[in-house]
């Protein structure tokens, strides 16, 4: 009967499995039944038994060697105190690092919000920068209309007797309308003077506020984007 169980145990465990079991045993993860199986195998297998002994020895010696205090470094009480004080001396002042870290962490935590905030900031900067910077006189209108226009310094004159058929947009200038305009007249950052002889059939607009100007930019770019 004993012979039979031994044989079964032996048949059930190959050397590969036995080595694995040895490691588990050294990890402290082998239960009694499994250990008995391992023992049974080793009683019949000289190779595994030898490996078991070597591994157990290695394990014990490694443990021992690692646990031994770090003697060869000649580490004294003073070394310990020195290291401690040099660590503490190296620490940055708390206030600064904390507020910085908090801000940076906030940025990491809300990437969407950060991107949106960045976008708004960049938008505003670019829009305001371009509003403030441009002080060049810009005139836009249809080509046939522009040939009638007289420019004198930063004054744009629609002369008496001429008739513009399209819209006229002037940036950074004074518009004097002496003739007739069929379309709209828009003045950005400037003045409009309508002479007694002048006539504007469409709307006339003067834009000199940043917000008006942005609104104008937005609506004109939207209407430009939508084909009519």
């Amino acid at each position, binding site marked *: 009967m004993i012979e039979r169980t031994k044989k079964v145990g032996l048949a059930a465990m190959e050397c590969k499995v036995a080595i694995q079991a040895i*490691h588990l045993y050294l990890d402290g993860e082998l239960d009694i039944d499994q250990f008995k199986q391992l023992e049974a195998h080793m009683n019949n297998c000289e190779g595994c038994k030898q490996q078991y002994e*070597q591994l157990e020895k*290695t394990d014990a010696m490694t443990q021992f060697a690692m646990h031994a205090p770090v003697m060869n*470094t000649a580490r004294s009480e003073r070394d310990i105190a020195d290291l401690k004080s040099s660590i503490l001396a190296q620490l940055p002042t*708390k206030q600064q690092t904390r507020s910085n870290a908090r801000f940076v962490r906030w940025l990491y935590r809300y990437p969407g919000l950060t991107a949106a905030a960045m976008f708004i900031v960049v938008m505003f900067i670019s829009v305001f920068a371009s509003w403030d910077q441009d002080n060049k006189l810009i005139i836009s209108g249809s080509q046939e209309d522009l040939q009638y226009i007289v420019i004198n310094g930063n004054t744009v004159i629609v002369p008496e007797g001429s008739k513009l058929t399209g819209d006229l947009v002037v940036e950074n200038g004074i518009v004097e309308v002496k003739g007739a305009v069929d379309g709209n007249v828009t003045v950005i950052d400037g003045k409009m003077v309508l002479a007694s002889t002048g006539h504007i059939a469409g709307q006339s607009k003067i834009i000199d506020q940043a917000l008006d100007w942005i609104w104008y930019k937005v609506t004109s770019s939207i209407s430009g984007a939508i084909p009519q």
Partner: protein
Amino acid sequence: MNLLESQLVKLALKGDQAAFAELVELYQEKLYHMAYRMLNNRQEAEDVVQDTFLRVYNNLERYDVTMKFSTWIYRIATNLSIDRLRKRKPVYSLDAESSDYEGLDGYSMIPSDNRTPESELLISETQQIIHQAIDTLPPKYKSVMILRYIHELSLQEVGDILDMPVTTIKTRVHRGREFLRKKLEHKL
């Protein structure tokens, strides 16, 4: 969860330097021990300990209170040690000053750099053989073996520290043990 440690972390977070000093007191030798086993060099081990505490201090707010403090601090120290081991590889001349560590030349990389004659006597020959064998372990096995044996951490704790599944740790312990066995086979 160690109550004292979590308390100290909380105080240090509020800017209490004395509490942080207490943490340094509690951990510096453990970390030094570990780093020295990894690097086998006194200066570098001290550097690792310093860097570790600096990082801990700067990242105290990021410390996850559900994690053991020891796990966290060991993780930082192990990573720093492994970084140094990896950087150290291509050292060719003993006289050439290392490009990675200012003021260190090849001689200071030699394990026996600062053994005094007296301390030499205290280490048995067997121990030296074992340490030499441990020193030849590739870094990924070395860190696992050192953490496993030095402070008798459980495999789970080693896994937490190295941020790896326990199964991986087990495999590495087994391979590391096998590696050492082969190294020591003829010497012991």
